[in-house]
Protein backbone atom coordinates (compact mmCIF):
# COMPACT_ATOMS: atom_id res chain seq x y z
CA UNK A 1 0.00 0.00 0.00
CA UNK A 2 1.16 3.52 -0.73
CA UNK A 3 2.22 5.61 2.21
CA UNK A 4 1.61 9.32 2.70
CA UNK A 5 2.67 11.19 -0.42
CA UNK A 6 3.59 14.86 -0.56
CA UNK A 7 4.29 17.19 -3.45
CA UNK A 8 6.38 18.91 -4.46
CA UNK A 9 9.55 17.49 -2.91
CA UNK A 10 11.42 20.77 -3.04
CA UNK A 11 10.31 24.34 -3.65
CA UNK A 12 12.10 27.66 -3.85
CA UNK A 13 10.16 30.87 -3.40
CA UNK A 14 10.92 34.52 -2.71
CA UNK A 15 9.67 36.68 0.13
CA UNK A 16 6.07 37.83 -0.26
CA UNK A 17 5.05 35.00 -2.55
CA UNK A 18 2.40 32.38 -1.87
CA UNK A 19 2.87 28.61 -1.77
CA UNK A 20 0.58 25.56 -1.86
CA UNK A 21 1.76 22.19 -0.59
CA UNK A 22 -0.16 18.98 -1.21
CA UNK A 23 -0.64 15.75 0.70
CA UNK A 24 -2.36 12.44 -0.03
CA UNK A 25 -3.01 10.31 3.04
CA UNK A 26 -2.76 6.56 3.38
CA UNK A 27 -5.86 4.89 1.94
CA UNK A 28 -8.55 4.69 4.63
CA UNK A 29 -7.06 7.47 6.77
CA UNK A 30 -9.45 10.38 7.22
CA UNK A 31 -7.26 12.53 9.47
CA UNK A 32 -4.43 14.67 8.12
CA UNK A 33 -2.08 16.78 10.22
CA UNK A 34 0.54 19.28 9.06
CA UNK A 35 3.84 20.03 10.78
CA UNK A 36 6.74 22.42 10.24
CA UNK A 37 10.25 21.26 11.04
CA UNK A 38 13.17 23.66 11.16
CA UNK A 39 16.76 22.51 11.40
CA UNK A 40 17.72 21.15 14.80
CA UNK A 41 14.18 21.00 16.15
CA UNK A 42 11.35 18.52 16.25
CA UNK A 43 8.27 18.97 14.07
CA UNK A 44 5.84 21.68 15.21
CA UNK A 45 2.09 21.11 14.81
CA UNK A 46 0.32 23.47 12.39
CA UNK A 47 -3.13 21.99 11.64
CA UNK A 48 -5.26 18.88 11.88
CA UNK A 49 -8.13 18.16 9.52
CA UNK A 50 -10.62 15.36 9.93
CA UNK A 51 -13.61 14.74 7.69
CA UNK A 52 -12.89 18.02 5.91
CA UNK A 53 -13.12 20.08 9.09
CA UNK A 54 -10.36 21.78 11.04
CA UNK A 55 -9.93 19.92 14.34
CA UNK A 56 -6.85 21.67 15.69
CA UNK A 57 -4.56 24.59 15.05
CA UNK A 58 -1.09 25.25 16.37
CA UNK A 59 0.56 28.55 17.18
CA UNK A 60 1.05 29.79 13.62
CA UNK A 61 -0.05 33.11 12.07
CA UNK A 62 -3.11 33.50 9.88
CA UNK A 63 -0.85 33.45 6.82
CA UNK A 64 -1.03 29.69 7.21
CA UNK A 65 -4.23 27.98 6.10
CA UNK A 66 -5.26 24.52 5.00
CA UNK A 67 -8.15 22.53 3.71
CA UNK A 68 -9.14 18.91 3.19
CA UNK A 69 -10.94 17.57 0.17
CA UNK A 70 -13.69 14.90 -0.12
CA UNK A 71 -11.03 12.29 -1.00
CA UNK A 72 -9.21 13.25 2.27
CA UNK A 73 -6.22 14.76 0.51
CA UNK A 74 -5.12 18.10 1.88
CA UNK A 75 -3.45 21.37 0.94
CA UNK A 76 -1.40 23.69 3.11
CA UNK A 77 -1.27 27.30 1.94
CA UNK A 78 1.15 29.93 3.13
CA UNK A 79 0.74 33.58 2.09
CA UNK A 80 3.20 36.47 2.22
CA UNK A 81 6.19 34.19 2.68
CA UNK A 82 8.92 35.23 5.09
CA UNK A 83 12.51 34.04 5.29
CA UNK A 84 11.58 32.29 8.54
CA UNK A 85 9.11 30.08 6.71
CA UNK A 86 12.02 28.12 5.25
CA UNK A 87 11.57 24.64 6.66
CA UNK A 88 10.58 21.05 5.98
CA UNK A 89 6.79 20.75 5.89
CA UNK A 90 5.52 17.34 6.91
CA UNK A 91 2.10 15.82 6.43
CA UNK A 92 0.88 12.91 8.54
CA UNK A 93 -2.24 10.79 8.33
CA UNK A 94 -3.90 8.49 10.80
CA UNK A 95 -7.00 6.52 11.54
CA UNK A 96 -9.35 8.31 13.88
CA UNK A 97 -9.55 7.77 17.61
CA UNK A 98 -7.29 6.86 20.48
CA UNK A 99 -3.93 5.18 20.23
CA UNK A 100 -3.61 5.50 16.48
CA UNK A 101 -0.11 6.52 15.40
CA UNK A 102 0.42 9.18 12.77
CA UNK A 103 2.32 8.16 9.65
CA UNK A 104 4.40 10.76 7.92
CA UNK A 105 5.27 11.57 4.34
CA UNK A 106 8.78 12.56 3.29
CA UNK A 107 7.92 16.23 3.39
CA UNK A 108 8.30 19.28 1.18
CA UNK A 109 11.52 21.26 1.59
CA UNK A 110 10.60 24.94 1.23
CA UNK A 111 13.37 27.50 0.77
CA UNK A 112 12.63 31.23 0.84
CA UNK A 113 15.13 33.56 -0.84
Amino acid at each position, binding site marked *: DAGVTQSPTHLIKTRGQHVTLRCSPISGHK*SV*SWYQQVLGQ*GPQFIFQYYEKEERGRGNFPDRFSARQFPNYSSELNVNALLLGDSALYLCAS*SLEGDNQP*QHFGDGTRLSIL
Partner: protein
Amino acid sequence: DQQVKQNSPSLSVQEGRISILNCDYTNSMFDYFLWYKKYPAEGPTFLISISSIKDKNEDGRFTVFLNKSAKHLSLHIVPSQPGDSAVYFCAARPTDSWGKLQFGAGTQVVVTP
Protein backbone atom coordinates in the same frame (compact mmCIF):
# COMPACT_ATOMS: atom_id res chain seq x y z
CA ASP B 1 7.06 26.30 25.93
CA GLN B 2 8.88 23.02 25.35
CA GLN B 3 6.64 20.38 26.92
CA VAL B 4 8.57 17.41 25.54
CA LYS B 5 12.31 17.35 26.10
CA GLN B 6 15.07 15.12 24.86
CA ASN B 7 18.10 16.33 26.76
CA SER B 8 20.70 14.26 24.94
CA PRO B 9 21.28 15.62 21.43
CA SER B 10 23.49 12.68 20.51
CA LEU B 11 24.30 9.11 21.50
CA SER B 12 27.07 6.84 20.27
CA VAL B 13 26.78 3.08 20.85
CA GLN B 14 28.64 0.01 19.68
CA GLU B 15 26.93 -2.48 17.41
CA GLY B 16 25.32 -5.25 19.45
CA ARG B 17 25.00 -3.15 22.60
CA ILE B 18 21.91 -1.53 24.06
CA SER B 19 20.84 1.98 23.06
CA ILE B 20 18.82 3.89 25.66
CA LEU B 21 17.10 7.09 24.64
CA ASN B 22 15.37 9.30 27.20
CA CYS B 23 12.50 11.74 27.05
CA ASP B 24 10.87 13.93 29.71
CA TYR B 25 7.55 15.74 29.56
CA THR B 26 5.80 18.35 31.65
CA ASN B 27 2.14 18.18 30.60
CA SER B 28 -0.02 15.87 32.72
CA MET B 29 -2.63 15.85 29.94
CA PHE B 30 -0.45 13.71 27.66
CA ASP B 31 -1.94 10.22 27.41
CA TYR B 32 -0.21 8.63 24.41
CA PHE B 33 3.48 8.59 23.62
CA LEU B 34 5.33 7.63 20.45
CA TRP B 35 8.85 7.20 19.15
CA TYR B 36 9.83 7.98 15.59
CA LYS B 37 13.03 7.41 13.67
CA LYS B 38 14.15 9.79 10.96
CA TYR B 39 16.77 9.35 8.25
CA PRO B 40 18.03 12.38 6.28
CA ALA B 41 15.74 13.37 3.40
CA GLU B 42 12.94 11.13 4.68
CA GLY B 43 9.94 11.72 6.88
CA PRO B 44 9.73 10.36 10.44
CA THR B 45 8.97 6.64 10.60
CA PHE B 46 6.76 5.36 13.42
CA LEU B 47 8.58 2.87 15.67
CA ILE B 48 6.57 2.13 18.77
CA SER B 49 4.01 3.73 21.07
CA ILE B 50 2.62 3.40 24.56
CA SER B 51 -0.61 4.43 26.20
CA SER B 52 -0.54 6.12 29.59
CA ILE B 53 -2.37 3.14 31.13
CA LYS B 54 0.69 0.95 30.51
CA ASP B 55 4.25 1.12 31.74
CA LYS B 56 5.94 -1.01 29.09
CA ASN B 57 5.45 -1.94 25.46
CA GLU B 58 7.71 -4.20 23.44
CA ASP B 59 8.05 -4.78 19.70
CA GLY B 60 10.97 -6.87 18.56
CA ARG B 61 14.22 -5.08 19.38
CA PHE B 62 12.37 -1.99 20.63
CA THR B 63 10.93 -1.51 24.12
CA VAL B 64 9.39 1.66 25.47
CA PHE B 65 9.08 2.29 29.21
CA LEU B 66 6.79 4.90 30.74
CA ASN B 67 7.14 6.29 34.27
CA LYS B 68 4.11 8.52 34.75
CA SER B 69 5.03 9.73 38.23
CA ALA B 70 8.39 10.96 36.94
CA LYS B 71 6.92 12.10 33.60
CA HIS B 72 9.66 10.17 31.87
CA LEU B 73 9.83 7.66 29.06
CA SER B 74 12.67 5.79 27.49
CA LEU B 75 13.30 3.73 24.37
CA HIS B 76 15.57 0.71 24.54
CA ILE B 77 17.01 -0.80 21.37
CA VAL B 78 18.61 -4.23 21.81
CA PRO B 79 20.80 -5.18 20.07
CA SER B 80 21.77 -2.00 18.25
CA GLN B 81 22.51 -2.36 14.54
CA PRO B 82 24.25 -0.01 12.06
CA GLY B 83 20.89 0.63 10.36
CA ASP B 84 19.64 2.12 13.61
CA SER B 85 21.84 5.17 13.05
CA ALA B 86 19.28 7.98 12.69
CA VAL B 87 17.61 10.80 14.60
CA TYR B 88 15.03 9.58 17.12
CA PHE B 89 12.11 11.75 18.15
CA CYS B 90 9.92 11.34 21.19
CA ALA B 91 6.33 12.61 20.74
CA ALA B 92 3.34 13.02 23.03
CA ARG B 93 -0.34 13.55 22.41
CA PRO B 94 -2.69 15.50 24.69
CA THR B 95 -5.92 13.84 25.81
CA ASP B 96 -8.14 16.49 24.24
CA SER B 97 -6.41 16.70 20.87
CA TRP B 98 -5.90 13.32 19.25
CA GLY B 99 -4.56 14.73 15.99
CA LYS B 100 -1.81 16.85 17.53
CA LEU B 101 1.61 15.58 18.50
CA GLN B 102 4.24 17.51 20.42
CA PHE B 103 7.79 16.49 19.63
CA GLY B 104 11.09 16.65 21.40
CA ALA B 105 14.13 18.06 19.60
CA GLY B 106 15.49 14.63 18.76
CA THR B 107 18.53 12.50 19.61
CA GLN B 108 21.09 11.61 16.94
CA VAL B 109 22.11 7.97 17.38
CA VAL B 110 25.29 6.65 15.80
CA VAL B 111 25.92 2.90 15.92
CA THR B 112 29.58 2.07 15.40
CA PRO B 113 30.97 -1.32 14.26
